[in-house]
């Protein structure tokens, strides 16, 4: 049998535990938030909304569509900017190690506000509107590129890839994040892209 002093201790412990439970709603407000990983997602889907059937072989003037998705897990709402760029196989991609964007000129920019924990998807319609085959077998020149009904004067050269047999270029999308303190966008070290192959009309 326990002594009276030990029973007294049990009563005190029960009382303190009860007070702690009652005080929890207040105490929880002063607790530091659980450390969670903060990140953003950037993905590209084919026209059916799945990671398949990406447009590849393209004739001048043919309309194609992809879906760009942005996921925000940063812990607060964010303003993103997707910059669309085109490069040939000799031009560099963004550098993930140094976190620097590609030096290619941005063809198109789309801003998107995404609430924390939410995902935003936007469709990008595009076509290689005007393509010149000045030097067949060496390179072709994308004169005009159309993105979401806006034509962009481009004059981008795509080199002939003998191994894969085509004039190949990579259409890629960089993710930039708005910093409310500096009121400027900074490259967010995320990019996705896919290769396209320009084929002549014949």
């Amino acid at each position: 049998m326990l002594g009276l002093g030990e029973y007294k201790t049990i009563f005190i412990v029960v009382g303190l535990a009860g007070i702690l439970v009652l005080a929890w709603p207040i105490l929880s407000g002063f607790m530091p938030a659980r450390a969670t990983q903060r990140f953003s997602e950037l993905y590209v889907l084919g026209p059916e909304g799945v990671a398949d059937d990406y447009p590849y072989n393209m004739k001048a003037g043919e309309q194609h569509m992809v879906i760009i998705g942005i996921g925000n897990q940063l812990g607060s709402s964010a303003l993103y900017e997707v910059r669309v760029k085109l490069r040939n196989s000799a031009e560099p991609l963004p550098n993930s190690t140094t976190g620097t964007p590609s030096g290619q000129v941005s063809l198109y920019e789309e801003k998107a506000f995404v609430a924390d924990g939410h995902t935003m998807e936007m469709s990008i319609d595009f076509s290689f509107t005007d393509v010149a085959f000045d030097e067949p077998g060496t390179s072709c020149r994308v004169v005009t590129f159309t993105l979401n009904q806006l034509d962009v004067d481009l004059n981008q050269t795509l080199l002939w890839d003998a191994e894969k047999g085509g004039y190949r270029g990579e259409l890629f999308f960089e993710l930039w994040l708005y910093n409310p303190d500096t009121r400027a966008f900074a490259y967010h070290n995320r990019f996705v892209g896919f290769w396209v192959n320009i084929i002549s009309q014949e």
Partner: protein
Amino acid sequence: MVGPIMNISRRGSYRPIVSVILVFLVFLGPSVTIGRVATAADNVPEKYRESFEAAQSAILTGFSTVLDAERSGADVSLLVEDLNTAQHQLSGVWVFDAVGDTEGATLAIAQSQLIAQEVAAEAKQLKATTIAANQSRLMNSALVMIAGGAGLCLILLLAWKRFKRGYVRRLRRSVPELAGRN
């Protein structure tokens, strides 16, 4: 036109006008030619530049206000959708201008700014409401803690006295020599 953003908000009185403009843009038909960086702010035609910048600034101010409200604990997901609507409207300027629809472009900018200002106002209100609700919840929690704590202490005290009496009685019964003592 810019790609349709797939979770556009459905609130607010400006929605019918927004819908008409979006439908017009979707069915615009032939594309329009502009220079590189199709939708960059520095590519805005001179005649719209001032109002465009004012609308863009209103959107960014609205966003800062929304972030403020979010920091206070408010659910701002609907306001974020509204900001997207405002940004989407503003992006229509290039297309309207390229087809020579000055009125459409001006309306798009004005609508965009209006939505952004409404968002900022709503965010401020939401922040105030959330702070008031948080204070009220904190006050209620404090009252529950004080009253509940006092009640719990009282109950435990009474229970302890009762238990102690019973304990002593049992002890006296089990040890007869103590029965006569107080």
